[in-house]
């Protein structure tokens, strides 16, 4: 067992864990944050995407131990004071989801995109989410959703 300390959505989690424990399982099983999903375990589908120190990372390809000391944001950490993050609002407004399984990862990738490019083109959005697979929507409404979120303030405002 090894000791790790992660800040997840602002709360500190110190645990003794098995070295082989994946970050996604740390978040789901240790922290109880089941909004981060597992779709492939090979880093391709992107359903497990979270922010690690502000960068979008696939939590199924990182050991929790590798994230020791990091600041993690998951889908549960986006809404503030009961207000949806503009990206969450955009997915709702523009029908950017159907079954919803890929959605948390898709939203986290969208959040990271807007952090480095506040007004992306549709082609840039499509490129930014090429590491996130969706089998339901056909992506057009997802691109609409990220476009909707672009330029909207990241706190308050939304419902």
């Amino acid at each position, binding site marked *: 067992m090894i000791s790790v300390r992660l800040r997840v959505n602002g709360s500190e989690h110190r645990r003794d864990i*098995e070295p*082989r*424990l994946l970050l996604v399982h740390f978040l*789901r099983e240790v922290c*109880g*944050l*089941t*909004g*981060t*999903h*597992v*779709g*492939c*375990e*090979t880093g*391709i*589908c992107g*359903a497990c995407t979270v922010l690690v120190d502000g960068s979008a990372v696939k939590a199924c390809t990182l050991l929790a131990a590798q994230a020791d000391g990091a600041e993690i944001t*998951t*889908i*549960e950490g*986006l*809404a503030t004071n009961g207000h*949806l993050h503009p990206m*969450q*609002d955009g*997915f*709702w*407004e523009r*029908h950017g*989801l*159907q*079954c*919803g*399984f*890929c*959605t*948390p990862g898709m*939203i986290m990738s969208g959040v990271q995109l807007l952090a480095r490019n506040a007004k992306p083109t549709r*082609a840039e*959005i*499509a*490129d930014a*989410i*090429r590491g*996130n*697979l*969706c*089998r*339901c*929507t*056909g*992506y*057009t*409404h*997802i*691109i609409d959703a990220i476009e909707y979120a672009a330029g909207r303030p990241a706190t308050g405002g939304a419902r």
Partner: protein
Amino acid sequence: MSDPVKSPYIGRALKRVEDPRLVKGLATYTDDLRLPGLLHVCFLRSPHAHARVDRIDTSAARTLPGVVAVLTGADVNEHCGIVPCAAEIPDLKSPRHTVLAGDRVYFVGHPVAVAIAADPYVARDAIDAIEVDYDPLPVVVDPEEAIKAGAPLTHPDLGTNIAFTHHVTGGTDIDDAFRRADKIVKERMVHQRLTPMPIEPRAVVASYHRGDGTLTIWSSTQVPHLVRTLLPGMIAIAENKLRIVAPEVGGGFGAKLQVYAEEALCGHLAMRLGAPVKWIESRRENAAATIHGRDQIGEYEVAVKNDGTILGLKARTVADLGSYCQLLTPAIPTLTGLVLTGCYRIPAIKVDLVGVYTNKMATDAYRGAGRPEATYLIERLMDIVAREVGIDRVELRSKHFPAVADFPFQTACGVTYDSGNYQGTLAKARQLADWDQLVVQRANARAAGRLSGIGMSTYVEICAMGPSKAMPAGGWEWGCVRIEISGKVTAITGVSPHGQGQETSLAQIVADRLGVLIDDVVVLHGDTGVAHYGRDTYGSRGTALGGSALVMCIDKIVAKATTLVAHLLGVTADRVVFADGRFSAPGVERRLSWAELAGEAFIAKNLPPGLEPGLEASSFFEPANFTFPFGTHIVAVDVDRETGKVTINKYVAVDDCGIRINPLLIEGQVQGGIAHSLGQVLFERTVYDENGQLLTGEFMDYAIARAGDIPDYIMGSTVTPSPVNPLGVKGVGEAGTIGATPAIANAVIDALQPLGVRHLDLPLTPERVWRAIQQHSPVAV
């Protein structure tokens, strides 16, 4: 807080009531369930396509710390019955499909043993510690080779690889049609095997309550009611002691329209071990051991006159079933024969189908299930016929459309199309595509030496499945509506949405019919403890049939409320008026809301004689026929001569799915369906090598569409109500997948036509297209 959205709701692009929990990460999928003492299940699966299992040694696995049990077929098969097939196929030869392999394995991914441990990582360790001695046997991979004399056998005990043959003739005399033809146009087409790949793999949690002997199974399934009906035939539990819950389900596309071995086995393990168990499928397992789709090879012949009149159509099809019959496996290729003639008057048909076992995963219902195959082949054939006969392909299609007045229209395939306006969708699509301009642009591009093509499909499909007489086990749908004592409305549906958004679209229907705010309506589904009966979600049936059952419930409630209102207002029932959610009578000042009426009905101190308390009704809706949505898709592409890469420049989709409840959700369904087609046409293909090894076992090897692959859409609609249900809804879940595949394929072939390319099988990968360009180009220097 903004003001609540007011009625009418039907026809409006309302955003979904499902979404807040989903975008917040607060939805509960099967893997998100937490039960005290939960054990984790992991399967050992065969690495061989066909082998004898000589020895399984679980001793090392069983001694690992944390391992609860390691079991093989010898331990569990006698307790778990046979994986069911509900297809009604006469003289079907079907192998005995036990939950774990016996002394042989028949496909890569065939489950051989199961380990149960307190920790999921330890369960995997246990699987790795099991030793199996396999003795490889001859493998059957190619279904056409498999039906030749002397071919190795998938299941040697069956004595043949042929599961069934199916012969249909319909309409006028087929031989006469071919005798009278000026020309017989022939083509061979391969409809490749596909992997559905929902992003959530399968998942099962089972929990047995020893005290009352009840078993609850949560499963990522499209069909909780079918599972509840069929599992008691497999494991030792009575139907009325079994509750199946489909919690949040992360996509299905037919892959979860099944009763799987793993569901039965998890139920058995929960009872056997006295502890709740969870199994989460890995992506590799999902690719290898969840059903595949399509996989038909056909030789097709069209009898045609010189003026383009089509007299008849023959299909000889070999369908690759894989190694076992899952729930509907052998029925799927027979569905192809039901819409073989597409939206055309083709007076005579003949279908000869042979279903073949091979050492691969079973094929079954994948989005469209038999109809995409039919649409693809008839739409490819229309293009080929037009070219061979020298008639414009739009004119050829148009010439064979039944007119609006011809509906209900009986086809040579033996089905009756409910309603249609094929010229209407064609005209609208041509207008939206600016067809004449597209043709000019293509001519200019070709003159400049580019490979430019236009494709179209005019499709019809079968939805709202279906009339019970035509379904294996009941095609009706059930619903229940209750006006709660508070006036809030609870609607319970027997359909089981998993992304389609029926918590929203059904609430729109209920709120409009009752005249209440949509915020006051909750739609429940997917739990057999709540939705007692149902036939679940597949075949684009949810809104048409689930919605119609709710309409029947509301009609009963309004009738009962009318009796109660007449009593309360002191008038005769025929004077009671119901409008905008209020009951009144001319000349009486008092008006009654649903909340007031529900209070009277449930408190029940002042009911008319003979009226039962409560304000609730349930109904079974039995459809008189299937529905037949239709549409026209038009696609313009460029093909890069140097690389073979296809670029879609324009995509126009005009779909008629009858009355439109929520246009936003319809758009999402169509776009999602087109993305499956785009993948099928351009890159998707499930590949087994000559040893039966699955080469497309991951997202790394099986390419589904990504965001950058999607074109901009121009989307349109026409509205031709269905006469076979009270909502006039037809269904739209599979339309995109059915209409788009031939439209995109026809565009690519049209681009290659100047080189002399007549047909290419899918997928039209850059390599396949490039090779075709090389073969058909003048010899290079």
